[in-house]
């Protein structure tokens, strides 16, 4: 058990270190990796809500915006002060600590909002929930447009650049582990059962409201983190980054990869990070292609590329073990 933790920590450190090394890469390539990581976090967290809990939320950009703006506002208005408070540490360590805390606060703020929005709206079914979450996203955007302290419609410049590939890898792993560990557990099965049949789930003694809200909060938290990473990479934010289009883009990632597949989300995020690059200069053609993909998948392969399955070495091992076991019982 202890060894497993140690191994995990070593792996994380190694991957984060890899992020360091990647600085030597071509900056364009580096940026694509950063965006892939951020998009993966967004997609995995939305997948928890849509793909696993089966609650159709299309306001993810709203949570991303909340986390991004909140952590950025902290960085811009309080960053220097907190860093100087930690003057007993070397400057770069102090920056890391403060950034980590601000990012976390951004995620938490987004999660709290998720709670406030989730409790009333998650009583709604399917398409009503969709509209309510969409409405939430719009309310967030309109609110930001009216908040002078974060620049309103002019955008919010002057955010320090703190995000690098190492940070993205770190949060990517945390998000992956949290969602995976929840899904493959009693709690996760409870969440999935809501998607399958909410009434039956309730009959199994599952507090469906609690689990829906839980999925919503965790999803909102990681969307907020992704927003913070995004902001501290680009060094500025603009409300136009968080429109309904952004939510649909995230939705497209999970639809493409397959609802209810974590690895599918990562794959979908990859495709939607690279595709716009391939179609650079054809903004509207790109959007047309997005829409055709969206419709095409629904008509031809609604389960997405991964079809709700996971790709992982562990699964292969499991299947292998099962086969072995069957052989054994047969030979007996």
């Amino acid at each position, binding site marked *: 058990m202890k060894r497993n933790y140690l191994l995990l920590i070593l792996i994380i450190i190694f991957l984060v270190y890899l992020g360091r090394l990647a600085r030597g890469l071509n900056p364009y390539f580096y940026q694509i990796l950063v965006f892939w990581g951020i998009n993966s976090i967004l997609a995995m967290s939305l997948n928890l809500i849509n793909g696993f809990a089966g609650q159709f939320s299309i306001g993810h950009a709203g949570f991303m915006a909340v986390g991004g703006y909140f952590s950025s506002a902290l960085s811009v208005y309080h960053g220097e002060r907190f860093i100087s408070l930690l003057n007993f540490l070397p400057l770069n360590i102090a920056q890391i600590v403060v950034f980590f805390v601000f990012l976390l606060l951004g995620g938490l703020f987004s999660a709290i909002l998720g709670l406030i929005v989730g409790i009333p709206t998650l009583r709604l079914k399917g398409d009503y929930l969709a509209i309510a979450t969409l409405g939430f996203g719009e309310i967030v955007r309109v609110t930001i447009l009216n908040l002078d302290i974060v620049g309103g419609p002019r955008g919010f410049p002057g955010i320090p650049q703190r995000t690098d590939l190492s940070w993205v890898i770190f949060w990517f792993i945390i998000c992956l582990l949290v969602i995976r560990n929840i899904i493959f557990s009693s709690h996760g099965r409870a969440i999935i059962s809501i998607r399958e049949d909410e009434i039956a789930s309730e009959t199994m003694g599952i507090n469906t409201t609690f689990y829906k809200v839980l999925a919503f909060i965790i999803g909102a938290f990681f969307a907020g983190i992704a927003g913070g990473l995004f902001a501290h990479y680009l060094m500025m934010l603009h409300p136009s980054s968080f429109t309904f289009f952004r939510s649909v883009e995230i939705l497209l990632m999970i639809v493409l990869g397959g609802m209810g597949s974590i690895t599918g989300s990562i794959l979908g995020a990859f495709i939607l990070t690279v595709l716009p690059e391939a179609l650079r200069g054809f903004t509207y053609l790109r*959007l047309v292609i997005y829409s055709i993909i969206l419709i095409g998948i629904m008509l031809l392969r609604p389960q997405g590329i991964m079809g709700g399955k996971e790709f992982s070495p562990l699964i292969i091992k499991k299947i292998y073990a099962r086969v072995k076991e069957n052989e054994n019982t047969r030979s007996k």
Partner: protein
Amino acid sequence: MENVIQQILNGISLGSIYALIALGYTMVYGILRLINFAHGDIYMMGAFLGYFALGLWNFSFPIGLLFAMGGAAVLGIIIERFAYRPLRLAPRISLLITAIGVSFLLENLMVLWVGASPRPFPQKIPLQIYFIGDIVVTNRQIIIVLVSITLMFLLQFIVLKTKVGKAMRAVSFDKETALMMGIDIDKVISLTFAIGSSLAAAAGVLVGLYFNKIDPYMGVMPGLKAFVAAVLGGIGIIPGAMLGGFILGIAEVLVSAFISSTVRDAVAFVILILILLIRPSGILGKYMREKV
């Protein structure tokens, strides 16, 4: 006080636009239990059809209006036939995602074709302004309200008095039974899309006339807001859609006049969340408990 009355009058014009769009939402929802996300874009397409008819081909206003309505009806039928019908047995979520896809497709195809920047709408009807005391009313406002109300009455007549209307009500009440009674469900659904789309197109042309500006994204917000109007009045209920449309239009105009015009776009969504919490069935709706 005059100012309030003035704003309410403006709200009624805006509200009748929302009401026209909301009718399509409500009809489609009543029959397919689908939020047709592309409906707002059909309204946009209607506006552009009107733009071509009036500006390029120089049709008169009534003919242009009818042309736009007819074109949108065909578009609605095509969308239903090729994007929604194959998914009728699929999970609702697939249908919803497809609808979002169709909406994006229409918007961005139009951008590819005509560009994203707004265009002035051909002003076939010269503006006239009437004063009643301090209150200003334009002939365009009057036209909008009159055309809308006429269309709504026409719709009510179709739904309540004609055979097609009866078939539509039967299908929306219980599909299986309707099928057993020999109703051609596919035909009824096509027809519903046709009617809903043509009403949205009418709204599009009227908005072009009123605000004198159209663009490929013009349908996004009004589309969402009209949906809110439909929910507010009670989704699936035709008079509810009208009521919801007028209430929303007036509320929005009042808020932007007396509070702040920047929060205007949030009004609809705040109303939506409130109504869903307080009375999810809408003002005129009856509460239906889900059968276990």
